[in-house]
């Protein structure tokens, strides 16, 4: 139990699109343990984005249950979910989602601001996180002064700064060229080696190949759950 980071049972999510009911997720059961590196795949409409939002506590399910680190989070209030997002989850987005007017350092400090960390500790931890992704010389640059790969590293530093139990990446290389993509995937591999639990949502097999486990969704259900015998370097 204690090493289950994510455990979902019969997880379902329905949307109302006008008068029509759309079942994006139709009863998904899955467990992700500590220090696993999982890729979630599936064609568009398979429910992987919905699952990603639910895992990230950005959304609540319409059926089933979700335990994050043993805490049932499927019925939490908005503010409680905000706290969970802040403490337990580090997001990495396809479009980086950095604040354009803030420096790299300030972007990384942001989760700590909402955690109520003191200014001094905030700065120290943000500097550490940026150093960890190799950006110690870019701390005072704004996103538009950084390359795509550097921006994504800032986003990774931001995701890690609150020491979350889960790093959740949504198409993290979608906006990057192949060389840079490889660079980012090496960062992920290193974080995984250090013990970080990572979930990457992607539709690119080459990215999924870096994970040790690949979960494929289809029509809102689990299609396959396989272990990569050969993890890409």
């Amino acid at each position, binding site marked *: 139990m204690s090493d289950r980071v994510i455990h979902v049972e019969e997880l379902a999510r329905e949307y109302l699109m006008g008068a029509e009911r759309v079942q994006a997720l139709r009863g998904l059961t899955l467990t992700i343990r500590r220090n696993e590196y999982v890729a979630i795949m599936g064609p568009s409409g398979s429910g992987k984005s919905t699952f990603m939002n639910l895992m990230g506590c950005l959304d609540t399910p319409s059926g089933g249950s979700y335990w994050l680190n043993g805490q049932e989070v499927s019925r939490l209030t*908005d503010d409680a979910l905000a706290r969970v997002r*802040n403490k337990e989850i580090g997001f990495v987005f396809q479009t980086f989602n950095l*604040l354009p007017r803030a420096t790299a350092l300030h972007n990384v400090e942001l989760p700590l601001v*909402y955690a109520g960390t003191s200014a001094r500790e905030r700065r120290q931890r943000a500097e550490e996180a940026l150093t960890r992704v190799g950006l110690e010389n870019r701390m005072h640059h704004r996103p538009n002064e950084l390359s795509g790969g550097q921006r994504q590293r800032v986003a990774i530093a*931001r995701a890690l700064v609150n020491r979350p139990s889960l790093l959740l990446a949504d198409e993290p290389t979608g906006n990057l060229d192949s060389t840079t993509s490889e660079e980012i995937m090496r960062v992920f591999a290193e974080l995984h080696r250090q013990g970080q639990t990572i979930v990457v949502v992607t539709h690119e097999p080459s990215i999924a190949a870096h994970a040790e486990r690949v979960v494929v969704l289809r029509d809102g259900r689990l299609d396959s759950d396989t272990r990569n015998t050969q993890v890409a370097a």
Partner: protein
Amino acid sequence: MPVFEAVRMALRTIAAQKLKSFFSLIGVLIGVTFLIAVVSIVQGMNVYMEDQFANRLIGLNTFTLRRQPGINTGNVTEETWRAWQRRPRISYDDADYVAERLHTPALIARYCADRMTLNYNGKVAKDIDLQGTEPSYFEIKNIGIASGRIFTPQEVRVGAPVLVLGSEIGEKLFEGLDPLGKEVTIRGLPYRVIGVAERRGTLFGISLDKFAVMPFRAPARRHICPLNILDELQIKAPNPDLMLTAMAETEALMRTRRGLKPSEENNFDLQNASGALEGWKKISTVLFTALPGLVAISLVVGGIVIMNIMLMAVAERTREIGIRKALGAKRRDILAQFIIESATLSTVGAALGIGTGIGLAFLVRALTPLPAAVAPWSIGLAVALGVLVGMVAGVYPASRASKLDPITALRAE
């Protein structure tokens, strides 16, 4: 969400879009400018009216006994005016009666004045305020002597033809010559200049130095007052309390002397500096009553403009709000951020308004005789109003921002 960070972010936004910010702040700016400028000018006017106008025209701790008010700052109806004209005038005997019986220690000056023409050696000074009075008058009005001397009680008693000139006449008639000892004629009668007064300056741009003072029994008195009649009796007490005592005493004495029944109104007038200011006080009260309205209208308009700017900001920054929520911002964090931003915006407007308001006040001080002085409380009030307007204007946009769904917000362009 630390307040400081939100304030800094708001300031950065303002700096990035100077013109747009200026237009969005102009409502608050104008409102606060109004507040500061009007308060400073009206208060300056108050100081001026009290220090300069009333105290220099009537004198400090001084009141006058007259047939009718000498200074009217309010409106006087035709009817009131006619009633005043029917009152008996103040006679020499009235003055003696009051002077002999007044217990309160006070300086008393009998006084009469009118416009006269002065001649010297072919030169003419027209429209000179010729005042017939006693030596105590100089002390009551605080008129200093620049050269020569004032006349003596003996000269008053015998009605000696001597003059003390205001500084402007001295310069005009004698052009650099020493006026002392020179002979000036008034309606053909010779007067010897025995003194020249110190400069008194101007009041509302009118010179206070175009006067000549003579003993009230001097020959020219018949040109300025009817026989045995005075314009007024000036009475100065050592302090404001004694002035009020002396006023009450004088009122009682005059009523007795005139044989007025308790039901009858005074048929004479007692006026002191604060009485002379009644009309002005009405005006300043009206200004201070209208001011909140003017300020409120500008601030409401300013608040609405800021609310719109903030709604636009929320729309433009939907994605940012999504990011912040994903990173753990609670509703109240987003709410606080936008309210603080709105308050900062409005406070900057208020600060600019304080600047222009003070500027206007200084301009008025430089260009007019009014000592317009910025009241510290008005600055405090302006800052408080700025913060308040911004916070109120920010509530609705901030609440919209805080209720955004993080997933939708993250997808926004």
